[in-house]
């Protein structure tokens, strides 16, 4: 794609130059692009540079050849006074035609403003550096599936042997409870090893980070808190450093506060604690993958080198300690820059948006160029006179370009203002799932981008008219006395512009159609449960205050009391919340099956979920066979489980799963299946449902390794779910005032966040496509209407000779429809290419979707008929007498 764009840019140069250097320049460009990609340069910026160079150089070439062919050379010192004169002349000219100026400025403002607004989002989210020094050296280090994370001994191996790193740190995400104050608060804690803060290299706002000896004590006695926790609990008081904070029942000394922009690993992390050295140094379990890692590359090293080194170390570990590894699941290091990881899923949407507004700008430019061409027609006499009086081509071109530059400069300023409003609206309307939203602002980069776009626009809208006008034959124009039809070259240029506009609009419409169809497909497919009317809240018990029996009692009482509330139809609790949390995968062994039944020779995996009775009714997951859990599923009774449909199909294809048994890890107790429920998409709309196994909460200590102390409460109600919030808090407080309630939200909100990104960008793309359609319609109208005006004489003659009104109508309509059909054909070809480009964003719809393309054709046909009908009516109303008289 890049190659033919460059080839097209080469067409801008005079033929002689192109023939001499074209091949060399294409080779140059290929190497340039390859190198830019390898270095990971930001491609839109590279392209802007390449285009500006091509336009600027081509323009210089074209004017140069003219001047050296015998005309007068303008002495360079005259240029500046000329410029001032040209600007004054242009502004006066524009002021004399306010209607024309207004339409042009409105179009340019929309085009440039949309680009600046979307770029401000791209800039904030993707380009602005992270608040770590040299973020291009900071990366996350994990493993590919199925291990994902790292175990203690592996961390030790990597840390000892990686030469390409400045530092490697391990950390764990945990939750905890702060028990001081009125309400206990649930917080996100990161326990990190000694290299953590040096790797990120961000100094604390006040106080300090951890001293080496503080990694020696277990449990940790010191904490560093986030800026938001500091504001929340200490109102930004600097004496907070040195105070103690009761976290998970022990007092910890606050030694530092991080600055507000520090958000690692997550924005919602509230505090950081030292990960005791003893935890990492004990010869631990090789297969307990629970550590996250973050690292900083040594200066001069590359991510590729680190990746190779890590792969080598992983292979050596597998060779030296074969007893700890399963050969069918090799350990594969996975290294990603923190920045990529943070914004990776948002990037394709933003690029799609940037592409879309680029198209809008091109269409706007085509429209404006068209207007300028039409105006240029009216000025042919003026230009011819000036040429006859000795003005050089360069001089005239410069003046015409000054005019378009003035227009685009004003458009750029207005566009920037529009972008300022637009980016505020975007931030207000954007879903919180877009990372780094708070970074979006009109900063110098955005201003520079807008300036570049304006210059580009000015050249684009000015070049075609300037080129056409300076080519007009002088003598002929003067003889004509400025009357008569436009030159055929000009009207050809105007038609070409309209065809290009229509083609661009078609590409945009079909692209947005594909995105819309994907969104609808996802929403129709559903998640497998019924999210509306459900309130969710996380309730966490203190491990040391609650043993297994007391926990069971607490949650059963809680669910019972909540379910008894008026207007509540069902209530239950689960270990994790679908869509919001991740349940992980556990291996299990189905009774009566052997290894060889499974493709990779291993036991199958399923997502584990611990639930109380009532959970299925509360979340709205249908019970397909068997029964729900009840109070009989207690410790000591028969161990039971309920499984999802996919679990049953995966374990015993085609057989009735009820009454069959399975066990975890190959050596746990056998569990009997008492029910089958539907599948749910626990990872959101885009994901396939995973096989899931449900354990009755009361039995989890025996049947499923451990009993979780932190559970999510789900309450289904007929009315507005959020109204129950104070009641639920009250019930929890009455059971135990030390227990925190957090993450209170409706299930609708949780689910909405999962498609929010897609919904947001699809809405924007659709809006821009509609704008493009309107602009293309206006463009078509402009050309046809102009054509009718130009042909009034001809139409008059035809009517005088007896042409029917229908014939005139057909004549005009045919002209318009031919233009649109040509645009449509080119646009459809472009749509196929665009569909492939955005393939990654499409779900349940092919990149070449006939429904979408058909709808687009239909829509376009309607718009083009509308655009032609007004000029056609005017043509039919032409009175032959007046037309021939020439008024």
């Amino acid at each position, binding site marked *: 794609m890049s190659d033919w764009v460059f080839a097209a840019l080469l067409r801008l140069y005079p033929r002689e130059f192109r023939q001499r250097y074209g091949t060399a*320049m294409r080779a140059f460009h290929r190497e340039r692009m390859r190198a830019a990609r390898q270095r990971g340069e930001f491609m839109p910026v590279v392209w802007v540079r*390449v285009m500006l160079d091509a336009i600027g150089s081509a323009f210089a070439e074209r004017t140069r050849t003219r001047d050296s062919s015998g005309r007068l050379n303008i002495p360079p010192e005259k240029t500046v006074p000329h410029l001032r004169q040209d600007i004054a002349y242009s502004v006066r000219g524009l002021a004399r035609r306010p209607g024309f100026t207004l339409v042009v400025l409105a179009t340019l403002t929309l085009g440039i403003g949309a680009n600046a607004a979307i770029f401000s989002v791209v800039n904030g989210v993707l380009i602005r550096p992270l608040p770590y020094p040299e973020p291009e050296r900071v990366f996350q280090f994990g493993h590919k599936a199925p291990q994902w994370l790292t175990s203690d001994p592996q961390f030790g191996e990597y840390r000892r042997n990686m030469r390409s790193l400045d530092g490697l740190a391990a950390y764990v995400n945990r939750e905890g409870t702060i028990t001081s104050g009125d309400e206990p608060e649930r917080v996100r804690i990161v326990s990190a090893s000694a290299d953590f803060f040096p790797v990120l290299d961000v100094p604390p706002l006040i106080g300090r980070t951890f001293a080496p000896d503080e990694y020696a004590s277990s449990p940790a006695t010191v904490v560093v808190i986030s800026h938001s926790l500091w504001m929340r609990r200490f109102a930004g008081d600097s004496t907070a450093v040195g105070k103690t904070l009761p976290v998970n029942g022990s007092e910890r000394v606050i030694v530092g506060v991080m600055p507000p922009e520090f958000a690692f690993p997550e924005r919602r992390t509230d505090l950081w604690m030292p990960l005791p050295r003893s935890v990492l140094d004990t010869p631990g379990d090789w297969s307990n993958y629970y550590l996250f890692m973050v690292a900083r590359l040594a200066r001069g090293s590359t991510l590729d080198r680190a990746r190779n080194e890590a792969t080598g170390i992983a292979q050596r570990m597998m060779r030296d300690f074969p007893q700890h590894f399963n050969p069918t699941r090799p350990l594969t290091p996975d290294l990603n820059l923190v920045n990529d990881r943070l914004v990776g899923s948002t990037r394709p949407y933003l690029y799609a948006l940037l592409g879309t507004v680029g198209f809008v700008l091109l269409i706007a430019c085509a429209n404006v160029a068209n207007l300028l061409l039409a105006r240029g027609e009216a000025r042919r006499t003026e230009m011819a006179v000036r040429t006859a009086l000795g003005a050089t081509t360069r001089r005239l071109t410069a003046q015409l370009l000054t005019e378009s530059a003035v227009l685009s400069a004003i458009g750029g300023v207005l566009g920037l203002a529009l972008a300022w409003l637009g980016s505020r609206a975007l931030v207000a309307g954007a879903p919180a799932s877009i990372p780094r939203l708070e970074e979006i602002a009109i900063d110098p980069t955005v201003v520079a981008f807008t300036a570049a776009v304006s210059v580009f626009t000015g050249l684009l809208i000015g070049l075609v008219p300037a080129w056409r006008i300076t080519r007009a034959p002088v003598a002929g124009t003067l003889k004509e006395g400025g009357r008569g039809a436009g030159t055929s070259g000009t009207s050809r240029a105007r038609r070409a512009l309209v065809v290009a506009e229509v083609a661009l609009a078609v590409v945009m419409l079909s692209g947005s159609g594909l995105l819309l169809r994907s969104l609808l497909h996802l929403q129709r497919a559903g998640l497998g449960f019924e999210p509306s009317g459900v309130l969710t809240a996380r309730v966490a018990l203190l491990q040391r205050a609650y043993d297994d029996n007391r926990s069971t009692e607490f949650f059963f009482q809680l669910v019972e009391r909540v379910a008894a509330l008026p207007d509540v139809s069902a209530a239950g609790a689960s270990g994790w919340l679908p869509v919001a949390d991740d349940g992980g995968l556990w291996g299990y062994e189905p009774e009566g099956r052997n290894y060889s039944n499974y493709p990779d020779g291993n036991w199958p995996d399923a997502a584990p979920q611990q639930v109380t009775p009532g959970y299925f009714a509360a979340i709205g997951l249908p019970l397909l066979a068997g029964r729900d859990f009840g109070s009989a599923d207690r410790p000591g009774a028969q161990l039971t489980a309920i499984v999802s449909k996919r679990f049953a199909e995966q374990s015993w294809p085609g057989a009735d799963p009820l009454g069959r048994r399975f066990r975890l890890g190959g050596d746990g107790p056998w569990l009997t299946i008492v029910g089958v429920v539907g599948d749910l998409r626990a990872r959101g709309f885009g994901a396939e449902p995973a096989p899931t196994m449900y354990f009755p909460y009361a039995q989890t200590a025996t049947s499923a390794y451990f009993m979780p102390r932190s559970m999510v409460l789900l309450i289904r109600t007929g009315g507005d779910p959020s109204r129950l919030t104070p009641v639920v808090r009250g019930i929890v407080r009455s059971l135990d005032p030390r227990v925190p309630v957090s993450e209170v939200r409706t299930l609708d909100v949780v689910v909405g966040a999962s498609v929010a990104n897609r919904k947001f960008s699809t809405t924007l793309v659709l809006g821009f496509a509609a704008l493009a359609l309107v602009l293309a319609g206006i463009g078509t109208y402009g050309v046809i209407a102009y054509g009718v005006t130009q042909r009034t004489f001809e139409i008059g003659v035809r009517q005088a000779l007896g042409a029917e009104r229908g014939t005139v109508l057909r004549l005009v309509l045919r002209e318009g429809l031919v233009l649109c059909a040509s645009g449509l054909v080119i646009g459809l070809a472009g749509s196929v290419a665009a569909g492939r480009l955005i393939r990654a964003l499409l779900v349940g719809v092919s990149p070449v979707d006939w429904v979408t393309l058909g709808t687009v054709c239909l829509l376009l046909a309607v718009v083009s008929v509308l655009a032609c009908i007004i000029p056609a009516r005017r043509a039919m109303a032409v009175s032959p007498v007046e037309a021939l008289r020439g008024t």
Partner: protein
Amino acid sequence: MSRAKPDRDPNDLLPLKPIELLILTMLSGADRHGYGLRQDIVEHTEGRVALEAGNLYRHIRNLENASLVAVVDARKGGHSDDERRIYYRLEPFGRRVLAAELLRLRALIRVAEANRVLAPAGT
């Protein structure tokens, strides 16, 4: 400026534009193709001068027209069309112009050294 005359005075072409000076200097070491020149210049100027295709080849064209550089006879061999690089070399006359320009600059540096703008180059 059109065809090369055999006994032109290099001083007629001075001073050189900064980019012309850079290109000629880079070519004085070895024959280079377009992208190679860009890389040399990027490296030498630590990224401050990064030429794009149009700008670079316009300068090459000027230098070629003035017979300071010339195309090396196309490199023979199994190059696919994809890699058809065109190499340029510094012509003898180009070398004389470059030397004249550098002498001019050296004289200028002497003045600056005498005026204590620069410390004299170390021995």
